[in-house]
Protein backbone atom coordinates (compact mmCIF):
# COMPACT_ATOMS: atom_id res chain seq x y z
CA UNK A 1 0.00 0.00 0.00
CA UNK A 2 1.35 3.38 -0.97
CA UNK A 3 2.12 5.44 2.07
CA UNK A 4 0.03 8.46 2.63
CA UNK A 5 2.84 10.32 4.26
CA UNK A 6 4.74 11.18 1.14
CA UNK A 7 3.61 13.91 -1.20
CA UNK A 8 3.31 11.37 -3.96
CA UNK A 9 1.14 9.25 -1.75
CA UNK A 10 -1.01 12.17 -0.80
CA UNK A 11 -1.53 13.25 -4.36
CA UNK A 12 -2.37 9.71 -5.32
CA UNK A 13 -4.91 9.39 -2.54
CA UNK A 14 -6.46 12.71 -3.41
CA UNK A 15 -6.82 11.81 -7.05
CA UNK A 16 -8.30 8.48 -6.21
CA UNK A 17 -10.96 9.76 -3.92
CA UNK A 18 -11.64 13.25 -5.05
CA UNK A 19 -10.14 13.33 -8.52
CA UNK A 20 -13.27 12.89 -10.58
CA UNK A 21 -15.36 15.37 -8.63
CA UNK A 22 -12.62 17.98 -8.51
CA UNK A 23 -12.05 17.61 -12.22
CA UNK A 24 -15.75 17.80 -12.96
CA UNK A 25 -16.25 20.79 -10.69
CA UNK A 26 -13.43 22.64 -12.35
CA UNK A 27 -14.37 21.92 -15.92
CA UNK A 28 -18.09 22.40 -15.50
CA UNK A 29 -18.34 25.18 -12.97
CA UNK A 30 -15.08 26.92 -12.15
CA UNK A 31 -13.63 27.20 -15.62
CA UNK A 32 -16.76 28.58 -17.29
CA UNK A 33 -17.09 30.94 -14.36
CA UNK A 34 -13.57 32.27 -14.84
CA UNK A 35 -14.07 32.44 -18.59
CA UNK A 36 -17.24 34.37 -17.89
CA UNK A 37 -15.34 36.80 -15.68
CA UNK A 38 -12.85 37.24 -18.48
CA UNK A 39 -15.69 37.92 -20.91
CA UNK A 40 -16.99 40.68 -18.69
CA UNK A 41 -13.76 42.47 -19.38
CA UNK A 42 -14.42 42.37 -23.11
CA UNK A 43 -17.19 43.66 -25.27
CA UNK A 44 -18.32 40.33 -26.67
CA UNK A 45 -22.00 40.64 -27.44
CA UNK A 46 -22.64 36.93 -27.42
CA UNK A 47 -22.67 36.60 -31.18
CA UNK A 48 -19.79 38.11 -33.12
CA UNK A 49 -16.75 36.12 -33.96
CA UNK A 50 -14.46 38.79 -32.56
CA UNK A 51 -14.34 40.95 -29.50
CA UNK A 52 -12.07 43.46 -27.84
CA UNK A 53 -10.72 43.79 -24.36
CA UNK A 54 -12.30 46.77 -22.68
CA UNK A 55 -11.24 46.52 -19.08
CA UNK A 56 -13.65 47.60 -16.40
CA UNK A 57 -15.91 49.61 -18.66
CA UNK A 58 -18.74 47.10 -18.32
CA UNK A 59 -18.68 47.33 -14.56
CA UNK A 60 -19.00 51.05 -14.74
CA UNK A 61 -22.09 50.58 -16.87
CA UNK A 62 -23.48 48.22 -14.26
CA UNK A 63 -23.46 51.07 -11.78
CA UNK A 64 -25.22 53.26 -14.27
CA UNK A 65 -27.96 50.78 -14.95
CA UNK A 66 -30.65 52.08 -12.64
CA UNK A 67 -33.00 49.25 -13.46
CA UNK A 68 -30.45 46.75 -12.17
CA UNK A 69 -30.34 48.44 -8.79
CA UNK A 70 -34.12 48.75 -8.62
CA UNK A 71 -34.50 45.07 -9.33
CA UNK A 72 -31.81 44.26 -6.80
CA UNK A 73 -33.64 46.23 -4.13
CA UNK A 74 -36.86 44.49 -5.06
CA UNK A 75 -35.10 41.16 -4.81
CA UNK A 76 -33.83 41.97 -1.33
CA UNK A 77 -37.40 42.69 -0.25
CA UNK A 78 -38.59 39.48 -1.87
CA UNK A 79 -35.84 37.41 -0.26
CA UNK A 80 -36.53 38.89 3.16
CA UNK A 81 -40.22 37.99 3.09
CA UNK A 82 -39.71 34.63 1.45
CA UNK A 83 -36.98 33.44 3.78
CA UNK A 84 -38.84 34.49 6.91
CA UNK A 85 -42.22 33.12 5.85
CA UNK A 86 -40.84 29.88 4.47
CA UNK A 87 -38.87 29.13 7.58
CA UNK A 88 -41.62 30.09 10.00
CA UNK A 89 -44.19 27.97 8.17
CA UNK A 90 -41.74 25.12 7.67
CA UNK A 91 -40.81 25.09 11.33
CA UNK A 92 -44.43 25.26 12.47
CA UNK A 93 -45.38 22.39 10.23
CA UNK A 94 -42.37 20.40 11.35
CA UNK A 95 -43.20 21.02 14.99
CA UNK A 96 -46.77 19.94 14.52
CA UNK A 97 -45.76 16.91 12.52
CA UNK A 98 -43.32 15.60 15.08
CA UNK A 99 -45.77 15.63 17.95
CA UNK A 100 -47.08 12.19 17.22
CA UNK A 101 -50.27 13.16 15.47
CA UNK A 102 -52.08 10.51 13.54
CA UNK A 103 -51.37 10.35 9.85
CA UNK A 104 -48.06 12.12 10.29
CA UNK A 105 -46.25 10.43 7.46
CA UNK A 106 -49.05 11.10 5.06
CA UNK A 107 -49.12 14.76 5.97
CA UNK A 108 -45.35 15.05 5.69
CA UNK A 109 -45.42 13.58 2.23
CA UNK A 110 -48.31 15.81 1.27
CA UNK A 111 -46.59 19.03 2.21
CA UNK A 112 -43.41 18.08 0.42
CA UNK A 113 -45.11 17.38 -2.88
CA UNK A 114 -45.23 21.03 -4.09
CA UNK A 115 -41.48 20.84 -4.26
CA UNK A 116 -41.77 18.35 -7.07
CA UNK A 117 -43.07 20.86 -9.59
CA UNK A 118 -40.45 23.28 -10.67
CA UNK A 119 -39.60 26.21 -12.79
CA UNK A 120 -41.70 27.32 -15.64
CA UNK A 121 -44.45 24.81 -15.14
CA UNK A 122 -44.92 25.97 -11.56
CA UNK A 123 -45.23 29.54 -12.69
CA UNK A 124 -47.69 28.65 -15.39
CA UNK A 125 -50.00 26.73 -13.11
CA UNK A 126 -50.03 29.48 -10.52
CA UNK A 127 -50.49 32.14 -13.14
CA UNK A 128 -53.54 30.24 -14.14
CA UNK A 129 -54.68 30.15 -10.52
CA UNK A 130 -54.22 33.87 -9.97
CA UNK A 131 -55.56 35.20 -13.20
CA UNK A 132 -58.33 32.73 -13.94
CA UNK A 133 -59.23 30.68 -10.91
CA UNK A 134 -59.16 33.31 -8.18
CA UNK A 135 -60.94 35.85 -10.32
CA UNK A 136 -63.62 33.29 -11.00
CA UNK A 137 -63.93 32.63 -7.27
CA UNK A 138 -64.05 36.34 -6.57
CA UNK A 139 -66.85 36.90 -9.04
CA UNK A 140 -68.82 33.89 -7.87
CA UNK A 141 -68.70 34.70 -4.17
CA UNK A 142 -68.33 38.44 -4.45
CA UNK A 143 -65.02 38.52 -2.60
CA UNK A 144 -63.52 41.90 -3.33
CA UNK A 145 -60.00 40.67 -2.72
CA UNK A 146 -60.05 38.34 -5.66
CA UNK A 147 -62.20 40.28 -8.08
CA UNK A 148 -59.25 41.69 -9.90
CA UNK A 149 -56.38 39.57 -10.99
CA UNK A 150 -53.55 39.81 -8.51
CA UNK A 151 -51.11 39.77 -11.34
CA UNK A 152 -52.38 43.07 -12.69
CA UNK A 153 -51.15 45.16 -9.80
CA UNK A 154 -47.54 45.68 -8.78
CA UNK A 155 -48.06 45.11 -5.07
CA UNK A 156 -50.34 42.14 -5.37
CA UNK A 157 -48.15 40.60 -8.04
CA UNK A 158 -45.19 40.90 -5.68
CA UNK A 159 -47.11 39.01 -3.02
CA UNK A 160 -48.16 36.43 -5.56
CA UNK A 161 -44.48 35.74 -6.17
CA UNK A 162 -43.80 35.46 -2.46
CA UNK A 163 -46.75 33.17 -1.90
CA UNK A 164 -45.80 30.77 -4.64
CA UNK A 165 -42.17 30.64 -3.53
CA UNK A 166 -43.17 29.93 0.03
CA UNK A 167 -45.61 27.29 -1.15
CA UNK A 168 -42.93 25.54 -3.09
CA UNK A 169 -40.08 25.65 -0.60
CA UNK A 170 -41.79 25.25 2.75
CA UNK A 171 -42.18 21.51 2.32
CA UNK A 172 -38.51 21.10 1.59
CA UNK A 173 -37.42 23.14 4.61
CA UNK A 174 -40.03 21.39 6.72
CA UNK A 175 -38.35 18.08 6.05
CA UNK A 176 -35.02 19.45 7.23
CA UNK A 177 -36.61 20.85 10.38
CA UNK A 178 -38.31 17.54 11.05
CA UNK A 179 -34.97 15.82 10.90
CA UNK A 180 -33.61 18.38 13.30
CA UNK A 181 -36.48 18.00 15.72
CA UNK A 182 -36.22 14.25 15.63
CA UNK A 183 -32.59 14.52 16.56
CA UNK A 184 -33.28 16.34 19.79
CA UNK A 185 -32.75 13.98 22.69
CA UNK A 186 -36.07 13.30 24.35
CA UNK A 187 -34.64 13.33 27.85
CA UNK A 188 -33.61 16.94 27.51
CA UNK A 189 -37.13 17.91 26.67
CA UNK A 190 -38.55 15.76 29.45
CA UNK A 191 -36.17 17.25 31.95
CA UNK A 192 -37.39 20.69 31.05
CA UNK A 193 -41.00 19.63 31.41
CA UNK A 194 -40.33 18.13 34.79
CA UNK A 195 -38.79 21.37 35.89
CA UNK A 196 -42.05 23.03 35.06
CA UNK A 197 -41.31 24.66 31.73
CA UNK A 198 -44.34 25.43 29.61
CA UNK A 199 -44.55 24.47 25.97
CA UNK A 200 -43.43 27.90 24.92
CA UNK A 201 -40.51 27.98 27.29
CA UNK A 202 -39.42 24.53 26.18
CA UNK A 203 -39.50 25.80 22.63
CA UNK A 204 -37.49 28.87 23.38
CA UNK A 205 -34.84 27.55 25.67
CA UNK A 206 -34.34 23.97 24.63
CA UNK A 207 -35.62 23.23 21.16
CA UNK A 208 -34.74 26.29 19.16
CA UNK A 209 -31.16 26.54 20.36
CA UNK A 210 -30.57 22.89 19.53
CA UNK A 211 -31.97 23.47 16.10
CA UNK A 212 -29.52 26.23 15.25
CA UNK A 213 -27.40 24.27 12.77
CA UNK A 214 -30.54 23.27 10.91
CA UNK A 215 -31.85 26.78 10.92
CA UNK A 216 -28.57 27.96 9.48
CA UNK A 217 -28.74 25.42 6.68
CA UNK A 218 -32.35 26.22 5.90
CA UNK A 219 -31.74 29.93 5.82
CA UNK A 220 -28.71 29.40 3.62
CA UNK A 221 -30.70 27.32 1.17
CA UNK A 222 -33.67 29.69 1.10
CA UNK A 223 -31.39 32.67 0.58
CA UNK A 224 -29.67 30.93 -2.28
CA UNK A 225 -32.94 29.98 -3.94
CA UNK A 226 -34.38 33.42 -3.41
CA UNK A 227 -31.58 35.39 -4.94
CA UNK A 228 -31.29 33.43 -8.14
CA UNK A 229 -34.97 32.85 -8.81
CA UNK A 230 -35.69 33.27 -12.51
CA UNK A 231 -37.99 30.54 -13.83
CA UNK A 232 -40.79 31.33 -11.44
CA UNK A 233 -40.44 35.06 -11.94
CA UNK A 234 -40.60 34.65 -15.68
CA UNK A 235 -43.45 32.22 -15.77
CA UNK A 236 -45.67 33.75 -13.09
CA UNK A 237 -45.47 37.48 -13.61
CA UNK A 238 -43.00 37.91 -16.45
CA UNK A 239 -41.76 40.83 -14.45
CA UNK A 240 -45.10 42.52 -14.84
CA UNK A 241 -47.21 44.40 -14.65
CA UNK A 242 -44.97 46.78 -16.54
CA UNK A 243 -41.75 45.41 -15.10
CA UNK A 244 -42.68 46.14 -11.52
CA UNK A 245 -41.90 42.63 -10.36
CA UNK A 246 -38.74 42.07 -12.31
CA UNK A 247 -36.30 40.47 -9.93
CA UNK A 248 -32.61 40.77 -10.46
CA UNK A 249 -31.89 37.43 -12.17
CA UNK A 250 -34.58 38.18 -14.71
CA UNK A 251 -33.20 41.64 -15.28
CA UNK A 252 -29.74 40.23 -15.90
CA UNK A 253 -31.05 37.64 -18.29
CA UNK A 254 -33.03 40.17 -20.28
CA UNK A 255 -30.12 42.56 -20.39
CA UNK A 256 -27.97 39.88 -21.90
CA UNK A 257 -30.41 38.39 -24.35
CA UNK A 258 -33.31 40.70 -24.87
CA UNK A 259 -31.56 44.05 -24.94
CA UNK A 260 -28.69 42.09 -26.46
CA UNK A 261 -26.17 43.80 -24.25
CA UNK A 262 -24.59 40.53 -23.36
CA UNK A 263 -21.41 41.93 -21.91
CA UNK A 264 -23.31 44.07 -19.44
CA UNK A 265 -25.66 41.27 -18.52
CA UNK A 266 -22.75 38.98 -17.79
CA UNK A 267 -21.07 41.66 -15.66
CA UNK A 268 -24.27 42.16 -13.72
CA UNK A 269 -24.44 38.42 -13.16
CA UNK A 270 -21.05 38.50 -11.53
CA UNK A 271 -21.95 41.46 -9.44
CA UNK A 272 -24.97 39.55 -8.25
CA UNK A 273 -22.85 36.54 -7.47
CA UNK A 274 -20.44 38.63 -5.42
CA UNK A 275 -23.29 40.12 -3.44
CA UNK A 276 -24.93 36.75 -2.82
CA UNK A 277 -21.65 35.35 -1.56
CA UNK A 278 -21.31 38.30 0.76
CA UNK A 279 -24.77 37.92 2.21
CA UNK A 280 -24.69 34.16 2.64
CA UNK A 281 -21.21 34.13 4.10
CA UNK A 282 -22.33 36.68 6.66
CA UNK A 283 -25.37 34.61 7.45
CA UNK A 284 -23.46 31.36 7.88
CA UNK A 285 -20.84 33.06 9.99
CA UNK A 286 -23.50 34.48 12.28
CA UNK A 287 -25.10 31.07 12.46
CA UNK A 288 -21.89 29.39 13.46
CA UNK A 289 -21.27 32.02 16.10
CA UNK A 290 -24.72 31.45 17.59
CA UNK A 291 -24.09 27.73 17.61
CA UNK A 292 -20.84 28.09 19.46
CA UNK A 293 -22.37 30.35 22.05
CA UNK A 294 -24.79 27.65 22.93
Amino acid at each position, binding site marked *: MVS*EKTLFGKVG*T*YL*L*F*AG*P*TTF*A*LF*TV*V*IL*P*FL*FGVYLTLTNWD*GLSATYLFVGLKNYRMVFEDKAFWTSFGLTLRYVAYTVVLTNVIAFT*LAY*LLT*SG*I*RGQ*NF*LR*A*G*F*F*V*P*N*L*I*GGIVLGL*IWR*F*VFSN*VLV*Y*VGKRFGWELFLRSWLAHPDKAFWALVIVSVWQSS*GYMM*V*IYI*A*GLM*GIPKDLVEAATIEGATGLQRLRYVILPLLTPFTTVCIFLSL*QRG*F*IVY*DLNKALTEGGPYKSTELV*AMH*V*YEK*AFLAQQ*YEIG*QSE*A*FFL*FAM*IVGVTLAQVYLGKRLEVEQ
Partner: protein
Amino acid sequence: MAQRQRYREGILEVLRLSFLYFLLVLYLIPFFLVFVNAFKDRNQIIANPFRLPSAFHLANFIEAFRKMNYPYAFWNSLVITVLSTALIVFFSSMTAYLFARLPWKFNRFMFFLMVASMLIPFQAIMIPLVKIYGSFGLLNNRWTLMYMYLGFGCSFAVFLYHGAIKSIPLELEEAAMIDGCSRFQAFFRIVFPLLRPTTTTVAILDVLWIWNDFLLPSLVLISPRNRTLPLSTYYFYGTYTSEYGLLLASLILSITPVIIFYLFMQRHIIRGILQGSIK
Protein backbone atom coordinates in the same frame (compact mmCIF):
# COMPACT_ATOMS: atom_id res chain seq x y z
CA MET B 1 -58.44 15.73 36.91
CA ALA B 2 -56.31 13.54 34.67
CA GLN B 3 -59.36 12.86 32.60
CA ARG B 4 -59.91 16.54 32.04
CA GLN B 5 -56.29 16.87 31.00
CA ARG B 6 -56.68 14.06 28.50
CA TYR B 7 -59.90 15.55 27.24
CA ARG B 8 -58.18 18.89 26.66
CA GLU B 9 -55.32 17.23 24.89
CA GLY B 10 -57.75 15.31 22.74
CA ILE B 11 -59.43 18.52 21.61
CA LEU B 12 -56.09 20.12 20.92
CA GLU B 13 -55.14 17.19 18.76
CA VAL B 14 -58.37 17.43 16.82
CA LEU B 15 -57.82 21.13 16.33
CA ARG B 16 -54.30 20.60 15.17
CA LEU B 17 -55.32 17.87 12.79
CA SER B 18 -58.09 19.94 11.26
CA PHE B 19 -55.78 22.87 10.81
CA LEU B 20 -53.18 20.69 9.16
CA TYR B 21 -55.61 18.98 6.83
CA PHE B 22 -57.17 22.29 5.88
CA LEU B 23 -53.74 23.67 5.07
CA LEU B 24 -52.90 20.54 3.15
CA VAL B 25 -55.98 20.90 1.01
CA LEU B 26 -55.02 24.47 0.21
CA TYR B 27 -51.52 23.34 -0.63
CA LEU B 28 -52.74 20.68 -2.97
CA ILE B 29 -55.34 22.71 -4.85
CA PRO B 30 -52.96 23.40 -7.75
CA PHE B 31 -52.48 19.67 -8.20
CA PHE B 32 -56.21 19.20 -8.19
CA LEU B 33 -56.50 21.84 -10.90
CA VAL B 34 -53.82 20.21 -13.00
CA PHE B 35 -55.50 16.85 -12.68
CA VAL B 36 -59.02 18.00 -13.39
CA ASN B 37 -58.13 20.21 -16.32
CA ALA B 38 -55.96 17.65 -18.03
CA PHE B 39 -59.12 15.94 -19.13
CA LYS B 40 -60.70 18.97 -20.74
CA ASP B 41 -59.93 20.70 -23.96
CA ARG B 42 -58.38 24.12 -24.20
CA ASN B 43 -61.49 26.22 -24.45
CA GLN B 44 -63.25 24.45 -21.63
CA ILE B 45 -60.28 25.14 -19.43
CA ILE B 46 -60.29 28.83 -20.24
CA ALA B 47 -64.03 29.09 -19.75
CA ASN B 48 -64.14 27.51 -16.32
CA PRO B 49 -61.07 25.99 -14.73
CA PHE B 50 -62.88 24.64 -11.70
CA ARG B 51 -65.62 22.66 -13.28
CA LEU B 52 -65.15 18.94 -13.25
CA PRO B 53 -64.78 17.47 -16.71
CA SER B 54 -67.93 16.09 -18.25
CA ALA B 55 -66.21 12.81 -18.81
CA PHE B 56 -62.78 11.52 -18.12
CA HIS B 57 -61.63 11.01 -21.68
CA LEU B 58 -58.07 10.12 -22.16
CA ALA B 59 -57.86 11.98 -25.46
CA ASN B 60 -55.41 14.57 -24.18
CA PHE B 61 -53.21 11.95 -22.63
CA ILE B 62 -53.11 9.83 -25.73
CA GLU B 63 -52.25 12.72 -27.97
CA ALA B 64 -49.67 14.09 -25.55
CA PHE B 65 -48.13 10.65 -25.27
CA ARG B 66 -47.80 10.46 -29.02
CA LYS B 67 -46.51 13.96 -29.59
CA MET B 68 -44.00 13.79 -26.79
CA ASN B 69 -42.59 10.62 -28.22
CA TYR B 70 -43.05 9.43 -24.68
CA PRO B 71 -41.18 6.11 -24.78
CA TYR B 72 -38.04 7.77 -26.14
CA ALA B 73 -38.27 10.77 -23.88
CA PHE B 74 -38.95 8.59 -20.86
CA TRP B 75 -36.01 6.38 -21.66
CA ASN B 76 -33.72 9.37 -22.11
CA SER B 77 -34.86 10.87 -18.84
CA LEU B 78 -34.45 7.55 -17.06
CA VAL B 79 -30.97 6.86 -18.36
CA ILE B 80 -29.71 10.34 -17.72
CA THR B 81 -31.25 10.60 -14.26
CA VAL B 82 -30.17 7.21 -13.01
CA LEU B 83 -26.64 7.34 -14.36
CA SER B 84 -26.03 10.93 -13.29
CA THR B 85 -27.30 10.19 -9.80
CA ALA B 86 -25.12 7.10 -9.60
CA LEU B 87 -22.10 9.14 -10.67
CA ILE B 88 -22.83 11.82 -8.12
CA VAL B 89 -23.36 9.35 -5.29
CA PHE B 90 -20.32 7.29 -6.10
CA PHE B 91 -17.81 10.05 -6.57
CA SER B 92 -19.12 12.53 -4.03
CA SER B 93 -19.17 10.04 -1.22
CA MET B 94 -15.54 9.25 -1.89
CA THR B 95 -14.64 12.91 -2.01
CA ALA B 96 -16.48 13.65 1.22
CA TYR B 97 -14.69 10.72 2.85
CA LEU B 98 -11.36 12.20 1.89
CA PHE B 99 -12.30 15.64 3.14
CA ALA B 100 -13.72 14.31 6.38
CA ARG B 101 -10.92 11.93 7.30
CA LEU B 102 -7.85 13.75 6.06
CA PRO B 103 -8.11 17.35 7.11
CA TRP B 104 -5.30 18.67 4.94
CA LYS B 105 -5.30 22.37 4.20
CA PHE B 106 -5.89 21.65 0.55
CA ASN B 107 -8.91 19.51 1.38
CA ARG B 108 -10.39 22.22 3.54
CA PHE B 109 -9.85 24.73 0.75
CA MET B 110 -11.50 22.48 -1.83
CA PHE B 111 -14.45 21.83 0.45
CA PHE B 112 -14.96 25.53 0.91
CA LEU B 113 -14.69 26.03 -2.83
CA MET B 114 -17.35 23.43 -3.45
CA VAL B 115 -19.78 24.97 -1.02
CA ALA B 116 -19.12 28.43 -2.42
CA SER B 117 -19.70 27.20 -5.95
CA MET B 118 -23.29 26.35 -5.00
CA LEU B 119 -23.95 30.08 -4.95
CA ILE B 120 -23.01 30.71 -8.57
CA PRO B 121 -26.17 31.56 -10.51
CA PHE B 122 -26.56 29.32 -13.49
CA GLN B 123 -27.13 32.25 -15.87
CA ALA B 124 -23.66 33.50 -15.11
CA ILE B 125 -21.96 30.46 -16.54
CA MET B 126 -24.52 29.35 -19.08
CA ILE B 127 -23.06 30.90 -22.19
CA PRO B 128 -19.37 30.38 -21.37
CA LEU B 129 -20.18 26.73 -20.60
CA VAL B 130 -21.91 26.27 -23.90
CA LYS B 131 -19.17 28.06 -25.77
CA ILE B 132 -16.40 25.97 -24.28
CA TYR B 133 -18.06 22.62 -24.78
CA GLY B 134 -19.44 23.58 -28.14
CA SER B 135 -16.06 24.45 -29.46
CA PHE B 136 -14.91 20.94 -28.63
CA GLY B 137 -17.93 19.47 -30.32
CA LEU B 138 -19.03 17.83 -27.09
CA LEU B 139 -22.62 18.90 -27.20
CA ASN B 140 -25.74 17.05 -28.29
CA ASN B 141 -24.48 14.13 -26.30
CA ARG B 142 -26.04 12.42 -23.29
CA TRP B 143 -22.67 11.65 -21.73
CA THR B 144 -21.69 15.30 -21.71
CA LEU B 145 -24.93 16.11 -19.96
CA MET B 146 -24.35 13.46 -17.30
CA TYR B 147 -20.83 14.70 -16.77
CA MET B 148 -22.18 18.22 -16.29
CA TYR B 149 -24.68 16.99 -13.73
CA LEU B 150 -21.78 15.49 -11.83
CA GLY B 151 -20.05 18.84 -11.91
CA PHE B 152 -23.12 20.72 -10.76
CA GLY B 153 -24.38 18.18 -8.26
CA CYS B 154 -21.24 17.05 -6.48
CA SER B 155 -20.97 20.10 -4.23
CA PHE B 156 -24.24 19.62 -2.39
CA ALA B 157 -23.72 15.86 -2.19
CA VAL B 158 -20.25 16.26 -0.78
CA PHE B 159 -21.68 18.70 1.74
CA LEU B 160 -24.28 16.18 2.92
CA TYR B 161 -21.89 13.23 2.97
CA HIS B 162 -19.28 15.21 4.85
CA GLY B 163 -21.52 15.70 7.85
CA ALA B 164 -22.60 12.07 7.77
CA ILE B 165 -19.12 10.66 7.65
CA LYS B 166 -18.00 12.76 10.54
CA SER B 167 -20.57 11.01 12.68
CA ILE B 168 -19.23 7.56 11.92
CA PRO B 169 -16.68 6.48 14.51
CA LEU B 170 -13.14 6.17 13.22
CA GLU B 171 -12.42 2.94 15.06
CA LEU B 172 -14.17 0.80 12.51
CA GLU B 173 -11.97 1.82 9.61
CA GLU B 174 -8.88 1.95 11.72
CA ALA B 175 -9.45 -1.62 12.74
CA ALA B 176 -9.88 -2.66 9.14
CA MET B 177 -6.78 -0.84 7.99
CA ILE B 178 -4.71 -2.38 10.73
CA ASP B 179 -5.86 -5.70 9.41
CA GLY B 180 -4.36 -4.82 6.06
CA CYS B 181 -7.15 -3.09 4.11
CA SER B 182 -6.29 -0.14 1.94
CA ARG B 183 -8.17 3.03 2.69
CA PHE B 184 -10.12 2.52 -0.46
CA GLN B 185 -11.30 -0.93 0.59
CA ALA B 186 -12.07 0.34 4.07
CA PHE B 187 -14.26 2.99 2.62
CA PHE B 188 -16.27 0.70 0.43
CA ARG B 189 -16.60 -2.22 2.75
CA ILE B 190 -17.26 -0.41 5.95
CA VAL B 191 -18.11 3.25 5.64
CA PHE B 192 -20.22 3.32 2.52
CA PRO B 193 -22.77 0.77 3.71
CA LEU B 194 -23.22 2.80 6.86
CA LEU B 195 -23.98 5.81 4.74
CA ARG B 196 -27.13 4.35 3.32
CA PRO B 197 -29.50 6.97 4.74
CA THR B 198 -27.46 9.80 3.33
CA THR B 199 -27.09 8.03 0.02
CA THR B 200 -30.82 7.69 -0.11
CA THR B 201 -31.31 11.36 0.60
CA VAL B 202 -28.77 12.42 -1.99
CA ALA B 203 -30.29 10.06 -4.50
CA ILE B 204 -33.81 11.33 -3.91
CA LEU B 205 -32.86 14.99 -4.10
CA ASP B 206 -30.77 14.47 -7.21
CA VAL B 207 -33.42 12.39 -8.94
CA LEU B 208 -36.01 15.08 -8.27
CA TRP B 209 -33.71 17.78 -9.58
CA ILE B 210 -32.40 16.04 -12.67
CA TRP B 211 -35.67 14.46 -13.77
CA ASN B 212 -37.44 17.84 -13.83
CA ASP B 213 -34.54 19.89 -15.10
CA PHE B 214 -35.15 21.84 -18.25
CA LEU B 215 -32.56 24.52 -18.87
CA LEU B 216 -29.40 22.46 -18.98
CA PRO B 217 -30.76 19.74 -21.28
CA SER B 218 -32.20 22.40 -23.58
CA LEU B 219 -28.74 23.84 -24.02
CA VAL B 220 -26.88 20.58 -24.36
CA LEU B 221 -29.26 18.22 -26.12
CA ILE B 222 -30.34 19.67 -29.38
CA SER B 223 -31.90 17.08 -31.61
CA PRO B 224 -35.42 15.82 -30.95
CA ARG B 225 -34.40 12.24 -30.53
CA ASN B 226 -32.31 13.19 -27.52
CA ARG B 227 -35.09 14.94 -25.69
CA THR B 228 -35.84 14.32 -22.06
CA LEU B 229 -39.39 14.47 -20.70
CA PRO B 230 -39.33 18.13 -19.61
CA LEU B 231 -38.01 19.13 -23.01
CA SER B 232 -40.81 17.33 -24.73
CA THR B 233 -43.44 19.01 -22.54
CA TYR B 234 -42.32 22.36 -23.87
CA TYR B 235 -43.57 21.25 -27.21
CA PHE B 236 -47.03 22.29 -26.14
CA TYR B 237 -46.22 25.89 -25.46
CA GLY B 238 -47.05 28.19 -28.32
CA THR B 239 -45.71 31.65 -28.84
CA TYR B 240 -48.77 33.46 -27.50
CA THR B 241 -50.81 30.81 -25.84
CA SER B 242 -50.57 27.13 -25.12
CA GLU B 243 -52.36 23.90 -25.70
CA TYR B 244 -53.39 23.80 -22.06
CA GLY B 245 -55.18 20.49 -22.11
CA LEU B 246 -52.29 18.70 -23.76
CA LEU B 247 -49.81 20.60 -21.66
CA LEU B 248 -51.36 19.54 -18.38
CA ALA B 249 -51.67 15.97 -19.59
CA SER B 250 -48.03 15.97 -20.61
CA LEU B 251 -47.12 17.42 -17.25
CA ILE B 252 -48.89 14.61 -15.44
CA LEU B 253 -47.21 12.05 -17.65
CA SER B 254 -43.91 13.69 -16.94
CA ILE B 255 -43.96 13.99 -13.17
CA THR B 256 -45.91 10.88 -12.23
CA PRO B 257 -42.87 8.59 -12.34
CA VAL B 258 -40.99 10.84 -10.02
CA ILE B 259 -43.92 11.27 -7.64
CA ILE B 260 -44.23 7.49 -7.38
CA PHE B 261 -40.52 7.27 -6.75
CA TYR B 262 -40.76 9.93 -4.08
CA LEU B 263 -43.71 8.34 -2.29
CA PHE B 264 -41.80 5.11 -1.99
CA MET B 265 -38.69 6.76 -0.67
CA GLN B 266 -40.02 9.54 1.43
CA ARG B 267 -39.47 8.23 4.87
CA HIS B 268 -35.81 7.79 4.10
CA ILE B 269 -35.17 11.44 3.44
CA ILE B 270 -35.60 12.38 7.04
CA ARG B 271 -33.40 9.59 8.26
CA GLY B 272 -30.75 10.62 5.80
CA ILE B 273 -30.73 14.24 6.81
CA LEU B 274 -30.59 13.15 10.41
CA GLN B 275 -27.51 11.13 9.75
CA GLY B 276 -25.84 14.01 8.02
CA SER B 277 -26.48 16.44 10.77
CA ILE B 278 -24.94 15.03 13.89
CA LYS B 279 -21.50 16.51 13.88
